[in-house]
Every structure is written in C-alpha cells, then in structure tokens.
C-alpha cells in the first residue's frame, strides 16, 4: 500500500512538472530582443561587415592591406588624425569648463531657476543639428550678424574671420555638444549627498575647500562620463566642421567624404572608416577601465 502511494505521488509530481511549461514552452524572455536585433543585423552590422571587407580590396582582385598602408604612411592623413584629436580635445575641455558651472548651478539653485536652466539646456539639444549649424553660418559669416554689429559699433573695420576656420568649428561643435556634457554632469552632481557638504563644513572646511575636496572628487564620474561622450561624438563629427570649417585642416569624417564623393575611392574610404571606428572603440575601452576605478565610489 505505501509503495503504491509512493508511485502515485511520483506520478502526480511528474504530471505537475510536465503541466507547467506546456503551451508556453516556446517562449523565452530573451526572444524579446529578436526584432531589434534583426533590424540591426540587416541595416547596421551587415553594411559594416561590407565596409570592413571593402577596406581590404584594391584595384586588383584579392585581399590587400594597401589602403591601410597608404593611410598610416601618408603625412596628410596622420595630420587629419592629429587635427581630429586636437579639435575633439579642445571641444571636450571647453564643454567641461563651460558645462560644469551650469550643471552645478542646476543642482544648487531654486526649483524655478533650475527648471529654466533645464529648458535652456534642452531646447538647443532638441533642435536639429543642421538647423543650428546653418544658424551659426548666418551669425558668423563675413557680413553676418556678429560682424555687422561689431562694425556698426565701430569696434572693427574689417570683418573678423569667425568661420571657415577652426574657430568656426569650435563655436559650432561646442554649442551643439555642450548639452551632452551638462546632462551627463547634472545627475551625478544631483546625487551627491548634501550631508557630505554639511559634514565637511562642520569639520572646519570653508565653502571653497569643501567644493574642491568633497564636491569635485564626487562629481568625477559625471566628468569622465560627459567627457568621453563629447570626445567620442566629436571625433566622428562631419556636418558642423564641413559647413563652418575651412578647407585646410579637415577632420577624419571629411576625409572619408572626400574619398567617397570626389575621388570615388571606396576601398580607401572604407579603410579610413574602419580606422575611425577602431579609434572610437579604443577610447571607449580605455575609458571603461578608468570608469571602473571610479565606480568604487
């Protein structure tokens, strides 16, 4: 009798086990990512693979490293890389210097002021990049708004060269990328426990000392996050430097465009693209290591 019961019990257990998954067994949570993954595979990864493949082709059939050799041996393209890095670095630093006080103000000001500041940051952020770049062209050209005002005030006689040079690139890119910096800094700053500031004050530190020794170190995750974001976006910039910049010092995306549109050299353009991609990932990889250290606190 007990033996029979045991078997019966076992059978019901087995039945229960089978019952659970039946009917729903096909579905798994990870399947939710299938549609976007498919989309990316077809429209992003596959073209990228093609570009990668193309970068190894040449006039003759068969694979070659000729394009890469040309890129890294030519002083012209090394200069393009140097220019790209210089511009990106300056843009990042200026964004940080301009953005840090704004983000700080947003954390300490009253709700009203903070709200106004947020709107002021977000409106340009939501405006099309192209629209903003053209707006800067109208402002900065030789007979543009800025030069005309300065002339009518009698401050200058000849128009200042505000665009078609690196200055133009800086003005345009900093304006466009500044919100990214501010929006990266703000949540980190907002998350700093106000009691830490008060604690520092009770321990005898003045406001300035507290800011430098407590607030700034604790805002570093935001600084690195914003800087990486702005820098990585900068090195791939195309529209703003090509519209506001000159023809002398071009950035890497412009070099790609020249190869595609003017010289029809697709393999070489592909090679430059892959170099740009590699640099971008290299920076992200390095920054991940830096960020890892900062995650500790």
């Amino acid at each position, binding site marked *: 009798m007990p033996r029979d019961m045991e078997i019966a019990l076992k059978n019901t257990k087995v039945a229960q086990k089978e019952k659970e998954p039946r009917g729903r067994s096909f579905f798994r949570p990870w399947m939710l990512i299938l549609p976007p993954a498919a989309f990316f595979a077809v429209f992003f990864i596959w073209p990228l693979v093609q570009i990668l493949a193309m970068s190894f082709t040449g006039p003759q059939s068969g694979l070659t490293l000729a394009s890469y050799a040309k890129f890294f041996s030519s002083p012209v393209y090394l200069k393009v890389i140097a220019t790209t890095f210089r511009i990106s670095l300056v843009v990042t630093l200026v964004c940080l210097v301009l953005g840090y006080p704004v983000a700080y103000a947003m954390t300490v000001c009253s709700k009203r002021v903070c709200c106004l500041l947020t709107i002021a940051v977000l409106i340009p952020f939501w405006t099309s990049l192209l629209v903003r770049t053209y707006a800067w062209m109208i402002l900065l050209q030789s007979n543009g708004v800025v030069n005309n005002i300065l002339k009518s005030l009698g401050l200058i006689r000849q128009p200042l060269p505000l665009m078609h040079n690196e200055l133009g690139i800086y003005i345009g890119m900093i304006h466009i990328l500044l919100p990214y910096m501010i929006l990266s800094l703000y949540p980190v700053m907002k998350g700093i*426990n106000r009691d830490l500031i008060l604690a520092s004050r*009770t*321990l005898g530190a*003045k406001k300035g000392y507290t800011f430098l020794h*407590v607030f700034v170190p604790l805002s570093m995750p935001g600084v690195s996050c914003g800087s990486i974001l702005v820098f990585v976006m900068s090195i791939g910039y195309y529209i703003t430097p090509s519209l506001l910049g000159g023809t002398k010092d071009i950035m890497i995306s412009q070099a790609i465009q020249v190869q595609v549109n003017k010289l029809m050299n697709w393999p070489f353009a592909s090679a430059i693209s892959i170099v740009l991609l590699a640099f971008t990932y290299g920076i992200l990889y390095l920054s991940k290591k830096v960020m890892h250290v900062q995650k500790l*606190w």
Partner: protein
Amino acid sequence: MGARIKLQNIDKNYKQTKVIKNVNIDIRDGEFLTILGPSGAGKTTLLKMIAGFEEPTKGHIFINGNDVSRTPIHKRNIGMLFQNYALFPHMTVYKNVEYPLSVRKMPKEERKKRITAILKRVRLSEYASRYPRELSGGQQQRVALARALVFDPIILLLDEPMAALDKQLRKQMQLEIKDIHREFGITTVSVTHDQEEALTMATDVCIMRDGRIEQVATPTEIYEKPASVFCAKFIGEANVVPCPVVSVDRDGKAKISLHGITVPAPDQTRSYSENDVVNVVIRPEKINLVDDSYGGLKFHGKIEQSVYVGDALKLRVRLGNGHHMKVKVFTTSSLSLDVGDEVTLGVPEEDIVQVKP
C-alpha cells in the same frame, strides 16, 4: 573642554510656517541633552541652528557667552554625527578622520598620533585603509564618531544617530556613545524620537511639541514627574485619568474623584474651583496587586488582556466604572493570572502625579 550653550527666545519661520516658537534652553558644560519629540516638532531644526546650517529668524544662540547666531558653520568648532554618517565615500577611514585635521593644517606627526589614538578608541585600528562602503553600519557609525571628535570640538551634535541601525546594534552604540560622552566630558546635544534612547544616553531630556518646549528635566524627573499629559504619554506608558474636583475646603485644598474614589488632589500648591478637572498620571508598574486587607487606595477590576513580556506581565484591567487601567506586574514563578480573573489594584497615593493637560 566643553561648552555652555544658551538658546534665547529662538523663533524660526520657514516662509509662513512657524517651526520654532520662542524656545529657551540652557545647556550646562558637559551635559548630554536629548531633544525628544514626534516628527515635525522642530527638534532637528533646533539642532541645525546650533550647528549653523540655519539661522534663527529671531533670538540668539550663545556658546560660552558668545553670540554665534550668525557665525559660519566652519568657525563654530562643533562635531556632528549625521543620520546616515555622511562619511566621505572617496576617502579611506584614515583620510576621513584626517579631514578635519588637514583642514586645520595640523603637522603630519600630530595628525598621525591623534588618528591612531581615536581609531584605537573606537576599535577600528585595523580598518584604517578601508573605504566606508567596506564597513558595516555600526563600524561606519564609529568612524563618523571618531571623525567628529578627533579635532577636539567643544560640542557634539547627534542627529538621530541610531536611526539606521538595527535594534541590537542600536543599544550597543547608545552605551558606547554614553561612555564616550563621559570620557571626553563634551557637551552633547542629541535629537531623537526614540524615548528609550533618550532615557539611556541623556543626562537631561527636552521634550518638544509643535515647536515649543514641553519640559526640560532629568530622565528620572520626566518619568516620575511629567509636566504634561503629552510628556507622560511620550515617555513610557501611563494611565492618564481626568479627575473632576469634588470639593474645595476653606484653605483652597481640593479633593478629586479618581475613578469614583475621593482622594486629595496631589498638587496642593495651586488653588481650585468646584468645576475643575485635573489630570493625574499613574505609571502601570506603580500599581500593585493586593488583597482586600490592603489599607490604601484600591480598585476592583477584572483582567481583560494579559501580555507576557518576559520579565513582566502587562495587564489591561477593567474597573467597576467601565474604565481601564494599565498595570505592569513583574513575573514571579508563583504568579498565575488569567484573563477574566478578578483582581484588586492597590495604588500608593504618592505615585499619583498631577499633570497639566
């Protein structure tokens, strides 16, 4: 080493709301004052004003006779323990404790000497190179305490210091802070809503209600002679009985009716009129179970509820007139009481305390 603190006619308004209403307190050198009250009573605001985070709207704060009402925080030389410790997460335990000394530009050797000593005192010497997040709540609390004391402040402020600890640890920390207070002799002001904590640590307790002070006294005095019904109910358990005055004799001495039994009004220093109702407080553990031969004040009743709490039984006894009395009797092996049992409660007359409403 410590300091006298005097709060004089302090008012504090936030926009239209009056948070503190005419508060006056004198805190002696070396005293441990705990400000106790329900949330919203203004106790934390008071602490913030002593620390310098807030300025009083009206009135003055004196430390050792100097008006510090408008002195900036960093010049007050006050150590503060925050509710969530407020340890700097980007610094090691050592660096945290060193912070107030670095600010004061103290020579390196002197710093090291002090930090070593204070870390040893809070039993955290081996943790000097750890980061706060690597420590338990109690350890973080002790680091915060070390940091708040290492620079020889004249006052120590504690803002709900135990709120984030579990009960076991809380009791341990209370005793630890009590010891440290005695050892350093530092004037300490603490804020809490935990009455047990107040009674454990404080030399003096200040009970606040709606921005006003209800009573400032030693824990014993507050417990034995609460100033008001609010204080009586806030500290410990209490039977609060409203008693109508039944007769007033020629010298103004009154008799009141306590659950139908006429007794002299406990407070004979004031005068009464016929229609007065006075409130008296009887602590549950002052009430004894007696037999009918008991000569003093006694009430008959029936046990309605009995709760066993280990060392004692908490009873709710329904009296003949329908009212309840809370009674706490200490358990002995021979004690046997059940719900429904008839009991006689004896109340010593000297344990009936008259309080303001």
